[in-house]
């Protein structure tokens, strides 16, 4: 499937293709155009230029090919759950026995276990979303579009239904395009994810790819929680003294001086400044031969159950670290990060340097 867009509303020059049978997640902060993109695919809005193709053919009225699940479920409150699910079939004058058979099938696939005579206002949030799933499925669409279907539910239910969406997709084998602003939802759910900002695509790839190799500074800080630390670093002058990362007194804050050892780990020739990215979970007390060292002054430590979230400064710049041992605020300790876990970005273009 190929879908191309010109500038339609909040979207400019977006071009992407979704594989058949894939769970594809569009993620980005609110207002980034992800919902507009979904509505364009649905045909609820029209692109000013460009086109949308489904299954190789240009899709005009594509209502038979797609179905949509909305954030507020958009069920018809005056109809029973059964009538809600059967509505698309009734519009097509499907015979009654066939309606009953298909509704039963969709109800099974959506793992819906309720009295179908009840109406949406009498159902719980999770049950309503399952009814919406069944309604989307009943028409046998090629693509199911989901616009933040779980964001109005509480955290616990959201986690459970996230698993269910994944299983639902495996059972049904449908192509699903899923919009969310929640980076964790994107990482856990997507076969592939597309990170969007300001109406443009920033990166498209598998969750591990996007997490481990963020294409630019925005993706690096948007994906992952707590967000990746970004340190401004000064690269060593060719003739300068050789020092490891933080042995140098922070005489020239706020930039961090980079030692030769670290510089040699960078597979690119640069001079001047570079942005160094380190995920909080990659920092630890464990020293090793292929680790970069940072002298951190701790300011505050929070116990978060699985470990300790520490706030510290390195060469005058603030960082966070996920640590397995607590540390006293006010102390200074060395933190280490494996060289392969370091990310570098160009300060001017904000692009990843490899």
């Amino acid at each position, binding site marked *: 499937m190929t879908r191309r867009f010109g500038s339609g509303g909040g979207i400019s020059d977006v071009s992407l293709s979704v594989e058949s049978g894939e769970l594809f997640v569009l993620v980005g902060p609110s207002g980034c155009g992800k919902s507009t993109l979904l509505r364009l695919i*649905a*045909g*609820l809005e029209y692109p000013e230029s460009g086109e949308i193709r489904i299954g190789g053919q240009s899709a005009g009225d594509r*209502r*038979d090919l*797609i*179905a*949509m699940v*909305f*954030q*507020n479920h*958009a*069920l*018809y*409150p*005056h*109809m029973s759950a059964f009538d809600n699910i059967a*509505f*698309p079939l009734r*519009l*097509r004058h499907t015979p009654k026995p066939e309606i009953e058979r298909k509704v039963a099938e969709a109800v099974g696939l959506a793992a819906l276990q309720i009295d179908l005579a009840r*109406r949406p*206002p009498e159902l719980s949030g999770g049950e309503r979303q399952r009814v919406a799933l069944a*309604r989307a499925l009943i*028409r046998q669409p090629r693509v199911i579009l989901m616009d933040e279907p779980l964001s109005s539910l509480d955290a616990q239910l959201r986690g459970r239904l996230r698993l269910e969406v994944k299983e639902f997709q495996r059972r049904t084998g449908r192509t699903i395009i899923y919009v969310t602003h929640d980076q964790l939802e994107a990482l856990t759910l997507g076969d592939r994810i597309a990170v969007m900002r300001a109406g443009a695509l920033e990166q498209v790839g598998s969750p591990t790819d996007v997490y481990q190799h963020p294409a630019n500074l925005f993706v690096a800080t948007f994906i992952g929680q707590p967000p990746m630390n970004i340190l401004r670093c000064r690269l060593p002058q060719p003739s300068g003294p050789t020092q490891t990362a933080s042995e140098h007194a922070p005489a020239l804050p706020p930039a961090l001086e980079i030692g030769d050892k670290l510089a040699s780990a960078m597979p690119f020739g640069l001079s001047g400044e570079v942005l160094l990215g380190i995920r909080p979970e990659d920092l630890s007390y464990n020293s090793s031969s292929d680790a970069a060292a940072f002298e951190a002054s701790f300011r505050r430590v929070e116990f978060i159950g699985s470990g300790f979230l520490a706030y510290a400064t390195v060469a005058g710049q603030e960082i966070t670290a996920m640590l397995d041992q607590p540390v006293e605020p006010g102390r200074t300790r060395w933190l280490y990060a494996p060289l392969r876990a370091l990310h570098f970005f160009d300060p001017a273009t904000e692009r990843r340097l490899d």
Partner: protein
Amino acid sequence: MNGSTVIRPAGQPRADLKSPWAALARIIIEALVVLGAAVPVYLLIKQALTPELESFAWPPRWLPHALTLAHLEGVFELAELRSALILSVAVAAVAAVAATALGTMLAYAMARRESLRQAGMAGVTAARLLPMIAVALPLTIVLINLGLYDSASGMGLALIHAALAIPTTALTTYGVFAAIPPEQEEAAFLDGASALRIFLAVDVPQAKAAIAASLVLSFIMSWDEFAFALLIQVTHRTLPPLLYYYTVFGDVGSASALALVMLVPALAVIIALRPMLKSGLVAGTQR
């Protein structure tokens, strides 16, 4: 919402309304409201069923002393009653259905199209501000040209009554349509429904209560309308002008008896639409 907002189950009085004084005050207020509505109706019934002299007795008597069916019999003997009753029902029914159908569609358009909202509101308000009797003469000429002036069917009058009631029906239903999330319509669109089908299957059922209220209000507006009825139905009269002649003659008993007869169909419409008024209120709850 501020900090003082108290959340409580629907229908349960607030705790501070449970004190005995508050309960007493509530009973008194409720009694006054009921009395205010019931006393005129009681007097009407009393006047219709007692001899003329008793209505003018001084000091006035609250309880009837002698009962008579003479006034009612007189009204029913009136040759014109049957035709006026039928004509009034026909005019009010047609006016109510037309005003509700058109007003509902106007309200829907206003709720869904930003560009129509301002213009629609201005038009509806202007129509209410204008004293309609000021344009009575031009309207009469229009009806003469259409061949609907003083027609036996009363459809000219029904047309005017419908026009008079459209602002009311539009305003009654507007809020409900505005409260229906557009996503429901988008879902129906993607399910394959046409625009008309979306309106009829998704929006109208949720606006049932407001539509029933519109029907009741516009029916009663037409049922009681006097000025245009007097002007246009000169020979084929509806009930209000008929009632007017009794009042002019000063026959209080017969006027009351006719007014009593007029109450019955209006009450019947309200009672007939009651289930719709109730069911619609429940169906309107979203989430």
